[in-house]
């Protein structure tokens, strides 16, 4: 019993330490974004653009088919079970408000968060971060800040694309392939969307982007002893990102819609 209590205590302390470290890292990145030092600004901007390309542009071929398939499937299900007049409301509540941000975040975690953890882990073990510092280059400027801005901007764009494609594309597929009644669907969607929905989805994108970046960077930086730690850190980082997104999703839902 005492051993178990000790184990629980150690786990709790470890977890609290990890959250404290992640909060400190988030604060430092955020402060650097606000300060936006002139030194290295152009280099930073270029790396931000590269990050947006890797995270958003290269993910389009995954996000668009998923949004089309998920959108058409859900619209057909909703049309089958909901009364006509509720179809727009249900689609907005589930597809745009909940599934859109979460599924997009999942794609970003699978593609980019894991890549960031692996890259940061390797850079730590192979002393590449030290190599930057020995040239007077601040890793915050060229590694962390561009990742944070790039991933967050990418998530905002990808979630927007997901929502539009899933609703319009899903509607088009459902209309073309079935005889289910979908009259006035787009008009219902237009009526059902409220400013609060857009604010909630925007906040989710911001929180997801910042959180995914900080967690994946932190797990990458926690690699110390060797390259064999990188896969473990990547796996744990991805799981932590997923839990974080689900928790934030629920917290924002509770804050706005309960």
């Amino acid at each position, binding site marked *: 019993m005492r051993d178990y209590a000790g184990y629980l205590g150690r786990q709790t302390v470890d977890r609290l330490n990890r959250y404290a470290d992640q909060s400190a890292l988030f604060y430092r990145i955020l402060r650097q974004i606000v300060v936006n030092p002139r030194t290295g600004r152009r*280099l930073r901007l270029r790396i931000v653009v590269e990050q947006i390309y890797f995270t958003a542009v290269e993910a389009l071929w995954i996000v668009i088919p998923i949004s089309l398939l998920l959108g058409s499937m859900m619209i057909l299900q909703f049309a089958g079970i909901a009364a006509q007049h509720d179809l727009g409301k249900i689609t907005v509540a589930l597809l745009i408000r909940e599934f859109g941000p979460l599924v997009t975040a999942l794609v970003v975690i699978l593609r980019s968060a894991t890549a960031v953890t692996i890259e940061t882990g390797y850079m730590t073990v*192979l002393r*590449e971060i*030290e*190599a930057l510092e*020995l*040239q*007077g*280059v601040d890793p915050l400027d060229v590694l962390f800040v561009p990742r944070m801005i790039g991933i967050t901007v990418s998530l905002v764009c990808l979630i927007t694309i997901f929502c539009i494609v899933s609703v319009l594309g899903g509607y088009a597929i459902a209309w073309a392939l079935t005889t289910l009644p979908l009259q006035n669907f787009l008009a219902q969607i237009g009526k059902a969307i409220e400013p609060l929905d857009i604010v909630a989805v925007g906040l989710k994108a911001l929180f997801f982007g910042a959180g995914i970046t900080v967690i994946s960077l932190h797990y990458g930086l926690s690699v110390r002893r060797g390259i064999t730690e990188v896969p473990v850190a990547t796996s744990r980082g991805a799981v932590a990102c997923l839990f974080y997104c689900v928790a934030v999703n629920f917290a924002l839902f509770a804050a706005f819609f309960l």
Partner: protein
Amino acid sequence: MALIELRNYAHRPTGRGKGLETFSFTLAPGDAYSLHADRIDDAHLFLRALATLEPPEAGSYRFNGEELNFTKRRRLLAVRRKIGYLGVDAALIGNRTLRSNLLLGRYYHENRLDLSLGEDVLALCRLFGIEDKLDLRPAQVAPEDARAAVIVREMTKGAEVFLIEQAFVALPRQAAELYIGMIREKVDAGVPCVYYAGLTQYDRLFKKRDIYIRDGVLSVV
């Protein structure tokens, strides 16, 4: 005035070393030390300590008379830029080409991206035989070419002090002799230098004085 001054510095062991027991050490312009240690990890730790890469567990580090606070990152970066660190673990950035690696510091500090390598850098690249490999990434070139790129980067960044570890590691003989010649020029010009030869016979190349680390105890002779 001393360029680097470690006062009552101490560090716990790393790897298989004994660590560094409390010591004081100064490095002034014109100094050239040959480092000898009974454990490679202790020599490596000492060079990393001089390069500010290992924060002290006790004691202080002064650079140009200014005591460094290891929690003030920006200030630390400015100091690190003035240190030519050629340890065995000095690395290149893996996802950038050799050219980009050599230009990264200038991209950052000059806040411009339309830069090209200076004539002095290109001349060194030519001498080390990496001129035609500048657009490859470190993983795409041989280890000795990557090492040569590190040497070119550190030698041309305008460092005020050089910390060198096992100069002959991962370099063909001709390149190593070129490298040794470059260090000798720097030492003759009064740039302070600490050199660890490891198990090679090249420990008398630039030395004016010796540093011994035995069982974690540092002494200067």
